[in-house]
């Protein structure tokens, strides 16, 4: 992790670009509200009557977030917030479209969750004026993440939904603690690695062109491997297990610049996956469905490939330009509003729409890595890298699964899928990324002129830009 920041002393100052952000936000609202109107026209034959109320609420949320960014993070990245607003608006419209065919009320709930998400986004930006404060909570957040990951295993509040034990039910409110845990884990890893990266990087011996780390430094990576295997075994959640282990591996690689970690970790992952495939029937089912979906589809079989095969049919029917909102039949895919929302988008907006969504995800990851590159402190670099790679991994795992590139695993599509925990956690991730990029792009404060007699060194003023 070399410090290749442009010399801040040279006088280059990032522009604030808040005007550009506002312009993009207006376009993002057009994407979100336009989708809602198109759904109304396509499904019901008329522009929805509550378009003004719905659009007004969406606009109020987004503009409120923009004003807060203007006030407390004036140098933050101008692209992240609009991209997220567009994805969230599009997701709401697609969920609403599925509601209309299936007679459910997920979109209204999702709008409530989005409001909570934006509130937490604002709260994070206002309360956390400097991300380096989070280094104090390295081990606390690591412990909290492990507790959260264990919560679904507890007898009373743990809850098994569709074979995966990843839910916690507290009275009427259910949540997936894993979504919150991933943010805490990034904070914990970043804090741990920024302290130990020298030991991890410099000690060790070279074996067959690969720098292997010392045995005792392998402790954390083995621990993380065991935790993700535990998630795989006890919670039967392939996606989260892959997400957490991959995240740790990426951050280790970025922190130490040693490709050896990728070899070691990749080997561990492959070994673990092979053993899991041998031992567990649900893993075998997933792999078989992925390899030969049509053997598990239709009458005479147990129909375990019904969901991915219907999704593939839908996307094929959508073609290049899609069926248009209301023109397809995405309700055929079970859980189209959560895990398979990309299939619904592929069916009704076609490859063109799906590519746009993928590019938007790519932009979020790129902006995160950009913030990491220009960040001036190691912790900020690792934090932004970790958050960006969580995003990249999650999008890869879920969209790869829906489109049949890799075996299907249950994860939510960030900002699009129906699901409160995931939406709220992702809004907090964006707030953290904006905070890192704000501090990274903010110019170095002008320093007070020190007097020549240097008599007042003890009371030197360090001016902090706010």
């Amino acid at each position, binding site marked *: 992790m*070399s*410090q290749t920041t442009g*010399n*801040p*002393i*040279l*006088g*280059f*100052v990032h522009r604030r*670009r808040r005007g550009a952000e506002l*312009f*993009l936000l207006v*376009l993002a609202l*057009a*994407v979100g509200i*336009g*989708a809602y109107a*198109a759904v109304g*026209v*396509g499904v019901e*034959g008329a522009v929805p009557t509550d378009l003004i109320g719905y659009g007004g609420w969406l606009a109020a949320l987004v503009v409120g977030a923009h004003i807060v960014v203007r006030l407390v993070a004036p140098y933050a990245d*101008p*692209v992240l917030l609009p*991209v997220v607003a567009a994805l969230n608006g*599009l997701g709401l419209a697609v969920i609403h479209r599925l509601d209309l065919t299936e007679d459910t009320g997920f979109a209204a709930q999702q709008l409530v969750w989005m409001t909570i998400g934006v509130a937490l986004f604002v709260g994070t930006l206002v309360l956390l004026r*400097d991300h*380096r404060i989070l280094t104090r909570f390295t081990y606390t957040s690591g412990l909290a993440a492990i507790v959260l990951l264990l919560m679904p295993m507890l007898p009373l509040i743990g809850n098994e939904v569709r074979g995966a034990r990843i839910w916690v039910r507290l009275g009427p409110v259910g949540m997936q603690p894993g979504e919150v845990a991933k943010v805490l884990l990034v904070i914990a890893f970043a804090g741990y690695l*920024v*302290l130990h990266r*020298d030991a991890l990087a410099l000690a060790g011996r070279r074996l067959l062109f690969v720098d292997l780390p010392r045995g005792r430094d392998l402790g954390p990576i083995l621990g993380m491997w065991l935790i993700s295997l535990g998630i795989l075994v006890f919670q039967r959640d392939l996606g989260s297990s892959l997400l957490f282990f991959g995240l740790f591996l990426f951050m280790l690689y970025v922190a130490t610049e040693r490709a050896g970690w990728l070899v070691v970790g990749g080997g561990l992952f492959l070994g673990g996956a092979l053993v899991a495939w041998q031992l567990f029937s649900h893993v075998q089912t997933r792999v078989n469905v992925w390899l030969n979906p049509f053997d598990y589809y239709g009458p005479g079989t147990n129909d375990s490939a019904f969901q991915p095969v219907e999704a593939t049919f839908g996307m094929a029917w959508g073609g290049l*330009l*899609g069926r*248009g909102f209301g*023109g397809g039949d995405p309700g055929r895919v079970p859980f189209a509003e959560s895990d398979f929302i990309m299939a619904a988008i592929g069916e009704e*907006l*076609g490859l*063109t*729409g799906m590519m*746009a969504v993928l*590019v*938007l995800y790519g*932009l979020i990851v*790129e*902006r995160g890595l*950009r913030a990491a590159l220009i960040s*001036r*402190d190691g*912790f900020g670099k690792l934090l932004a890298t970790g958050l960006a790679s969580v995003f990249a991994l999650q999008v890869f795992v879920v969209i790869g699964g829906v489109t049949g590139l890799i075996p299907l695993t249950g994860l939510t599509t960030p900002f699009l899928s129906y699901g409160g925990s995931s939406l709220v956690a992702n809004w907090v991730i964006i707030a953290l990324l904006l905070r890192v990029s704000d501090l990274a792009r903010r110019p*170095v*404060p002008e*320093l*007070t002129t*020190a*007097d*020549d007699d*240097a008599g007042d*060194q*003890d009371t*030197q003023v360090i001016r*902090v830009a706010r």
Partner: protein
Amino acid sequence: MSELTLLLIRIAYLAVLWIFVLSAISVIRSDMFGARVPETARTPEPRGREPKAKAPSKRRGSPTHVLVTEGANAGERADLAAAPVLIGRGSDAAIRLDDDYVSTRHARIAASGDQWFVEDLGSTNGTYIGTVRITQPTTITLGTQVRIGKTILELRK
């Protein structure tokens, strides 16, 4: 609703989606083609080494070198004319410190206008002025003690 209207709506929506994507990309095109550096910052000298290092030394009582006053490398010094001065354990550092608490590229001393300041380069154990760990470039004057690991450095005339 006629088939043609629906087709137009479909294409118009995809157009809106892509207009948004392309505008977002155009906002960040400076990432690809490089950012504009303001004229004032560029004209003096692109690298800013010689003039910036010499400008302060014209004044009476300005520091000329950095001296290690305490620690394993006490007595080692680096000339400020070659600013910015890199301090760390790595071989490319102007002041190489044999101190276990020092990172490979630990801190940097550089000039801006008349002032010298020290900037932590994301080190593990931090750079301290007095007892305060610095989080951003901080002015130092003659005799200000900058602590890095077990080492203390000072600007000297």
